[in-house]
């Protein structure tokens, strides 16, 4: 069941289109990654989904409610980690949390505050002013704030941006823990490793949605896997024989190495080896090359640049 739906969401600021015709669905319990470069419209999209700003056209349905029509009711059911943690620096961590929690109804504030502060390792610092906290601590505190009322959907806008590797690691662990508990998470990031690590599905965005799939499928659909064959005795006849094989779609030579694209590597790899040997080729090695998500991402974004 989809708990987040976007139907043609579009946002223009004074004629400048930040997000255009975005449609997607996120299932309950899913961790959805929203991946895109700076200025791609990630924050704008999250703000529209979370009922902070209204779309110029299109609409969304989140937890069964329209963010543009009844934002306050929606807010009861969602948590938002904003791009910038935003606390009252002169007040204690506990006072801050109590204040933000005071807008919701139907849960035991003290109990929830203690549970999540302990979970984030901030319990000992609860009476300290937030102004004395490090960036990583503020980010964890903001995560606590977004979780207190047990939201059905958690929106995280670049949860690890600006954190050192250790702090980022802690936050990611936290998100994974939530994921295991079945929390629906909509996460924006420009960090590929993070998206791949945490997300069940990834939407690549740059004003428009460029692709949307599981990390694995994104790889498969965008790049056919390539087989790399190293020959001891490459010669033109051999090369043209290989290029003429019916299941070979593309061949690139670099010295002794041949990079081949096959219609279906699983089925034709043994066939390929046999045919090369029969044609008098002496094979030194056969391997497969996979592309990282980074290549996919860069190629998507560049493709967009070239066509636009």
């Amino acid at each position: 069941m989809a708990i987040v739906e976007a139907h043609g969401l579009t946002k223009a600021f004074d004629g400048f289109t930040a997000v255009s015709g975005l449609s997607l669905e996120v299932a309950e319990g899913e961790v959805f990654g929203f991946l895109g470069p700076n200025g791609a419209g990630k924050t704008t999209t999250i703000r529209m989904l979370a009922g902070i700003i209204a779309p110029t056209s299109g609409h969304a349905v989140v937890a069964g409610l329209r963010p543009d029509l009844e934002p306050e009711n929606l807010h009861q059911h969602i948590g938002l980690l904003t791009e910038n943690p935003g606390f009252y620096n002169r007040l204690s961590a506990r006072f801050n949390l109590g204040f933000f929690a005071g807008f919701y109804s139907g849960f035991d504030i003290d109990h929830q505050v203690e549970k999540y502060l302990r979970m984030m390792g901030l319990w000992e610092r609860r009476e300290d002013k937030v102004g004395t906290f490090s960036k990583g601590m503020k980010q964890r505190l903001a995560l606590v704030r977004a979780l207190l009322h047990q939201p059905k959907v958690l929106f995280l806008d670049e949860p690890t941006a600006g954190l050192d590797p250790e702090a980022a690691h802690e936050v990611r662990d936290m998100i994974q823990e939530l994921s295991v508990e079945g929390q629906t998470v909509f996460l924006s990031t420009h960090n590929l490793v993070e998206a791949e690590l945490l997300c069940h599905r990834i939407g690549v965005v740059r004003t428009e949605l460029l692709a949307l799939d599981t990390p694995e499928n994104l790889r498969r659909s965008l790049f056919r896997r390539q087989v790399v064959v190293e020959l001891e005795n490459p010669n033109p006849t051999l090369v043209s024989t290989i290029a003429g094989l019916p299941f070979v779609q593309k061949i690139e030579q670099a010295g002794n190495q041949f990079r081949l694209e096959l219609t279906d590597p699983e089925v034709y790899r043994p066939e390929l080896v046999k045919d090369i040997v029969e044609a008098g080729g002496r094979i030194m090695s056969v391997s497969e090359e996979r592309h990282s998500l980074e290549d996919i991402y860069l190629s998507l974004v560049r493709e967009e640049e070239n066509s636009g």
Partner: protein
Amino acid sequence: MGNKRIINILKKEWHVQSRDLNSILFVTLLPLLIIGQALLIIWLVERFGGEAILANSVFQGAIENLRDALPAVSGLGIEGQLQVFLLSQMNVYLLIIPTMIAISFATFSIVDEKLSGSLEALLATPVRTWELLLSKALAGAIPALLVTWVCALVLILGVVGIGWGQTVNMIVTPSLFLSIFLLTPAVALLSFLLGVIGSSRAKDARSAQNIVLAIIFPVLAIIGLQVSGLIWLTPLLTLGLALGVAVLDVFILRIAVRLFQRESIVVKWH
């Protein structure tokens, strides 16, 4: 008011205010200075300028209004009537106090939260825009009103101290009570609401202050004209004014909600 979200904001605002010694001093000292000055001017005018004023035609017109509204003053000598007239002007001072405080404090109410980023987190909670704006205005208007009431007390005690005790009971009239307990609160809320509008439209504290000054100044001018002694505030007039300003409060709150554009509030500030 049983609104949990408004109370929540008020509690936080007052918690912050109570820890800010500078602003507490400012909010209490400034009005007392104004009142002290008012007393001084009244005393000086009465002491040294009495003759000239008594001969002035504007004053004579005002005294006629005064006699119509308050027949009892006819029993006093012309000096006594001058005292009562001057004292009746304290309404102006009392009315202006919350507005003065609003200029300096409402200015920061929204812009501070904008700059620190807490505003977006606040907007992600179930709080309604009108609740947010109203509670921001009340958070300033209520303490400002308390300060004003203290000032009213100081003013009356001061007048007794000057030795005008016998005229005080002429001044402590239903009009004064209506003014202090209805008109002043309505004007205080109005000033703070206007301040909150200015603050929510500004990009930083300095421009907020300019916007707030620009919109509060006309209010000050209107108050000044209304109460500058050319109009004697009868109980009915006071009540009417208070109701009028209260209606204006509701209207201004609606405008404030409309002007509160979330798009411009949640842009990146750094």
